[in-house]
């Protein structure tokens, strides 16, 4: 067996071992490689930063266990920013796994006490609304009908000061949506942002960020944080480098490794095909 054959038939487990080393090393010894902040991340940050403190935000937190590892990076830093700015926020979700992850996020960022102290006056959590796009449409039409008039804790919505005069999508100033996969933010855009002509900021997975560009270009979506890279840039802009920024060294190492694997495999295949190597 020639060298090129040996390399092309290398066992997967060795590729994974090298991958694990390249991931673990920068986590244990961060190198602090420079992080380029994308224009769209600036747009997101500056858009939120420019909002007045009395802005009423609808914040669907559609997180799931399957994607929280990446989405969590952006949702944590964005929620921190929203709390820091002192906005009035109505949280909700059309994703069944949303509620426990939402409260874990608050606890992880040390915001749970603030949330509970100001509950009803600055923050409300509406609970999980079933039906995905139908759920988003029902919230846009009437929050009280969609939720049965109760919040996550069983409080009557009419008894909460923040909910006075707030019932439909048009009562909000901005939508800030965290998205477990590609479609949920689009559903909020379809059902709330576009019909009521209000800005929407989204945090998609990097894997689906590319599918959101047409909405950004069309002005249907205001801005987005694309996956771990967007979150890392946001942490830098917030002067609060955290897990997303720490993750970027590992990302760089692994991307270079994968590039070498792809190029190497193609070169070896080329040599095998055209170089006459048997």
């Amino acid at each position, binding site marked *: 067996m020639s060298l090129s054959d040996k390399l092309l038939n290398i066992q997967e487990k060795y590729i994974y071992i090298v991958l694990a080393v390249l991931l673990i090393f920068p986590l244990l010894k961060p190198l602090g490689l420079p992080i380029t902040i994308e224009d769209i991340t600036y747009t997101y940050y500056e858009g939120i930063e420019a909002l007045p403190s009395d802005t009423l935000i609808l914040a669907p937190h559609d997180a799931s266990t399957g994607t929280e590892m990446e989405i969590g990076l952006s949702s944590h830093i964005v929620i921190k920013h929203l709390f820091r700015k002192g906005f009035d926020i109505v949280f909700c979700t059309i994703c069944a796994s949303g509620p426990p992850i939402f409260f874990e996020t608050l606890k992880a960022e040390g915001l749970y006490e603030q949330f509970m102290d100001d509950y009803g006056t600055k923050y409300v959590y509406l609970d999980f609304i079933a039906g995905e796009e139908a759920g988003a449409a029902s919230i846009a039409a009437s929050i009280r009908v969609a939720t049965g008039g*109760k919040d996550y804790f069983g409080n009557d919505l009419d008894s909460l000061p923040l909910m006075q005069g707030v019932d439909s999508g048009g009562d909000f100033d901005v939508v800030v949506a965290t998205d477990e996969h590609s479609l949920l933010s689009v559903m909020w855009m379809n059902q709330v942002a*576009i019909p009521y002509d209000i800005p929407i900021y989204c945090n998609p997975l990097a894997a689906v960020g590319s599918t959101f560009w047409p909405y950004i270009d*069309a002005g249907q979506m205001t801005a987005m944080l694309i*996956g771990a890279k967007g979150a890392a840039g946001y942490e830098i802009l917030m002067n609060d480098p955290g897990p997303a920024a720490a993750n970027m060294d590992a990302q760089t190492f692994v991307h270079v490794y994968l590039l070498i694997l792809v190029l190497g495999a193609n070169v070896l295949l080329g040599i095998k095909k055209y170089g006459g190597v048997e």
Partner: protein
Amino acid sequence: MANTLSVEIGIWISAFMILCIYSWLYKYNKFFKFAESTMIGSAAGYLFIMGYNNIVNTSVRAIQIGKYWHILPILLGVSLFMRYVKNYEWIQRYGTAYLIAGTTAIFIRATIVTQVTQQIAATINYVSMATPMDILNSIIYLVFIVAVSGYFLFSERYSTKIPYYNVINKVGRYGFLTALGYYLGITVMTRIAFVSDRLRYLLFTWLKLSPF
């Protein structure tokens, strides 16, 4: 490096499950199967409870305060299960029909505006002649929009009637393969973020290591 292991049982269970799942990289084994089944079982149980709570919150409570028409969605939901009852399986058609009709109505109302009219308008507005680079971008943009649309819209049957169909076809293929390449590339970032997050959990939350 501080190195006191976590003493929380929840973190140990979580770490054990993560290692079970990643053991699949070596080979399919009983530990992976155990973690996989546990995940599916707990997710199904959780979704059942969330669905039940949702029905109680939106319909049962309403019925309790006299809004008896809220029985209708419950009946439509129950009708879906009638497919398992011999001789009465036709009843499930009502639930299915309502589900499809309602969802279609909600989707179409929004989709025509957001995915069709506004996207077409944005495509036209995107064309700019302000700078030489804008002109180049606009040309590339328009060429690929026409070519990719042409590739999907025109079937082989009519291709002979369209001038330069083969060229359009090939340019269209290169266009969407480039887009798919970008899509695949950025997918790597998501997958690596997943692994990196779990490794951080194992290293820093479970093993309590700290960066040096």
